[in-house]
């Protein structure tokens, strides 16, 4: 089996995680797909339920997918009471991806999740901070420092800060590390848009780009950041095959996430893991 991996205090059976937002809460996936992976990172969770964005929520680009789901989720209460118990029973460590509109939202979510048996948090900072006039947390290294520092006092275990790939990424990464983040997830989707000209008036779709198209960009980011920070980096961006994963591992990532590939084929994580086994044995 592919070696286990340590992300600070968090030990994973293997370096493959299911990326946030790309496997629902596992309701419609066979158990065998979910139980073999290194960790499950949940869909983004907010305190209150969110209905998400109106359609269209998806469009396709050359080798890429643009999504604007709008962080639809059932909110903390439903998640903790109805969803989390089932996820925890699956086996792999569960990492809960959280987001909020203010620092306080994050703190309250972390407190609420403290006694639930989850393995850690992934802190999504790509969302807008309403107190800062809607500027994303990820645009504001000092804000990220305060957010992360604040979190460390309510959440003492493993958590990763999920970076946005745009904005002052390096400054944000360093701020998160200095403030006490245990790992960085590098990175979220890229601001993108598509235009559908096939209708009378052009239909614009704004969202985040994922998939193979972004791999060379996020790979570069992981490479650069791994030379700047000491905490482990979890790579996320366009990983479709074991080779993609190995590329990330070879430039400094400690673990990696599979996202869009699951949407194309939920068997992808299992295939990647078994190919990875073979490749690592060959070395």
């Amino acid at each position: 089996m592919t070696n286990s991996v340590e992300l600070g205090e968090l030990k994973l059976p293997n370096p493959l995680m299911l990326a946030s937002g790309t496997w629902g809460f596992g309701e419609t996936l066979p158990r065998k797909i979910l139980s073999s992976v290194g960790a499950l990172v949940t869909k983004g969770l907010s305190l209150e339920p969110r209905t998400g964005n109106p359609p269209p929520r998806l469009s396709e680009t050359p080798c890429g997918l643009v999504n604007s789901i709008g962080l639809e989720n059932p909110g903390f209460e439903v998640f903790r009471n109805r969803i989390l118990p089932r996820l925890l029973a699956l086996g792999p460590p569960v990492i809960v991806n959280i987001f909020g509109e203010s620092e306080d939202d994050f703190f309250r979510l972390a407190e609420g999740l403290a006694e639930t048996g989850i393995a850690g948090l992934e802190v999504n900072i790509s969302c807008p901070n309403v107190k800062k006039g809607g500027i994303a947390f990820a645009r504001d290294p000092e804000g990220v420092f305060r957010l992360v520092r604040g979190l460390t006092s309510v959440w003492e275990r493993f958590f990763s800060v999920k970076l946005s790939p745009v904005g002052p990424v390096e400054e944000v990464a360093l701020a998160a590390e200095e403030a006490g983040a245990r790992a960085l997830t590098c990175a979220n989707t890229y601001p993108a848009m598509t235009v559908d000209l096939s209708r009378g008036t052009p239909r614009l779709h704004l969202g985040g780009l994922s998939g193979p198209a972004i791999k060379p960009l996020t790979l570069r980011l992981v490479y650069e950041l791994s030379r700047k920070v000491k905490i482990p980096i979890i790579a996320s961006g366009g990983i479709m095959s074991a080779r993609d994963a190995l590329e990330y591992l070879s430039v400094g990532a400690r673990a990696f996430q599979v996202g869009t590939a699951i949407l194309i084929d939920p068997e992808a994580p299992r295939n990647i893991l078994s190919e990875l086994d073979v490749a690592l044995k060959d070395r």
Partner: protein
Amino acid sequence: MIGARVVSQREVSPGYFLLKLEAPEIAHQARPGQFVKITAWEGRDPLLPRPFSIHEVKDSHLWILYQRRGLGTKLLSKIHRGETVWLSGPFGRPFPLPEEGSVWLVAGGVGVAPFFFYAGVLRTHNIPFRFFYGARSKGDLLRLKHLQSLGKLRIATEDGSLGYQGFVTDLIKVQLEQEDRPKMMVACGPPGMLSAVGQIGEAYGIPTYLSLEAFMACGQGLCLGCVVQRRRGGYLRVCLEGPAVDSREVALDKLS
């Protein structure tokens, strides 16, 4: 995804193809109204598999009836017999089977695809049904001979080249005034047609199911990407709560 051998493929009308695949696992599970996702190319452009209704099923084979539209269907149309495509499914909720009374199937254009399978199953269950099929012109009606053998069929063409002249929705309005009303309608076709059928169903108090289309990524409830607006607020996922949904569930004016 599983590899499925292409048993045959032919262009049944200009730009429309009938594809026969060998896929025992999926064929045995499939029920009418469900769909599969197909990848018929190497490389990552197009990135996403394409969703297609299951047109017919027999033993370990399934058929897809599809229109060539963009790159994905163009590539699919170039696949030769003996080659392999990648398949996953079946996905989505099957069409409902009424406990009693008759069903009207209302199809527009290539929306006729899932009704061949459905008609066969309705027949097996001895559920009476009528078939309404609309298209722009006579030449756009697909697999007409086969269709006629399936059961009672009424045609509408916009140019009057065959059957009733006008929209299929006008035709069913006429029929609803003349005949025993069905216990249920199931419609598949372009969004404008679907919302018109939905309105008719509600006006006549007939439970009506609309087989929706939406751009899909996962096709299985993972990404929340294929939503349409729910009438009472929020969204429903076409791939999971659909593709056929009760017309009263959806905001008909928001279909597109």
